[in-house]
């Protein structure tokens, strides 16, 4: 029983390994690239639209609406980063319906790198929006004593983001594996369906948390700096 697709190594040359995580990530990137190439080639500017264009517009506008609901007033500025996060995680989890596919999000290296992207993007957008001095001052917001706690919070939420996604996807595939040993007939299908639902919810949560973090970093004139997800009842 393996914990993550990192342990399935297809090809190795010295230090360089080609494991299932990298391979399936490349596959996903290929799907995204070819899909985007084909879909953007089909875009037209008239009233008669293709079904694919409608689907694409639904996805893009839906993501934009979610981002602006969190409190980012110009969602177009962030959709390149946040939308990619959502689509990547959602597609990586959705493809578990194909047999033989190992979700790359079930590996801690993938989720940690995604979380590190968020970790870098939050100060990037914060500084871009508010200026360096104003952004750094937000770390000392309630009082100066809170400075170390704010920094620790910044780091620990990155780890929480990574471990949440990893744990959910890994536990999903592991439960299916255990089910296949105990009751191999109907129950694995039910658990796969549940895993698909968890995968979608986790993709949405990853995306919405990243948006909330960016919104907290970019919002000007806040009294309490990090509005957590509990305070965002209207998302």
């Amino acid at each position, binding site marked *: 029983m393996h914990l993550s697709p990192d342990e399935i190594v297809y090809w190795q040359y010295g230090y360089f390994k080609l494991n299932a995580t990298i391979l399936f990530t490349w596959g996903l990137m290929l799907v995204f690239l070819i899909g985007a190439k084909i879909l953007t080639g089909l875009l037209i500017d008239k009233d008669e639209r293709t079904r694919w264009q409608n689907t694409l517009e639904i996805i893009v506008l839906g993501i934009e609406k979610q981002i602006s609901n969190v409190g980012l007033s110009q969602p177009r500025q962030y959709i390149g980063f946040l939308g990619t996060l959502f689509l990547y995680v959602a597609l990586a989890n959705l493809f578990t319906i194909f047999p033989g596919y190992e979700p790359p999000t079930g590996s801690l290296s993938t989720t940690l790198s995604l979380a590190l992207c968020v970790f870098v993007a939050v100060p990037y957008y914060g500084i871009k929006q508010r200026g360096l001095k104003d952004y750094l001052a937000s770390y000392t917001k309630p009082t100066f004593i809170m400075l170390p706690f704010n920094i620790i919070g910044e780091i620990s939420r990155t780890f929480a983001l990574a471990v949440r996604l990893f744990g959910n996807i890994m536990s999903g595939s592991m439960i299916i594996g255990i089910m296949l040993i105990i009751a191999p007939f109907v129950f694995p299908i039910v658990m796969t369906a549940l895993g698909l639902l*968890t995968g979608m919810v*986790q993709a949405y949560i990853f995306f919405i948390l990243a948006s909330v973090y960016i919104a907290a970093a970019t919002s000007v004139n806040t009294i309490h700096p990090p509005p957590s*997800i509990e305070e965002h009842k209207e998302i």
Partner: protein
Amino acid sequence: MDSLTIIAVTSIITSGITIGFGAIGPAFAEGRAVANALTALAQQPDASATITRTLFVGLAMIESTAIYCFVVTMILLFSNPFWNYFIEQSGH
């Protein structure tokens, strides 16, 4: 008992305790969340879409505490660093 046996016994017992206690808290929390969401749904059926979505997000966030415990358990059981270290030391 030699050190390998001690590590094995402690790992197994600790992983059981971890997942057991790690399930209690989120179970209570999820029960409370669902109960409150049902009350809210009964009072305001119009806001069901928002309530359900927020409930799902909240449930998944509560569940992640249980998932953290699960990850620790899996690490203890299947890729225990201490166990691997002692196996390496004993030269098997």
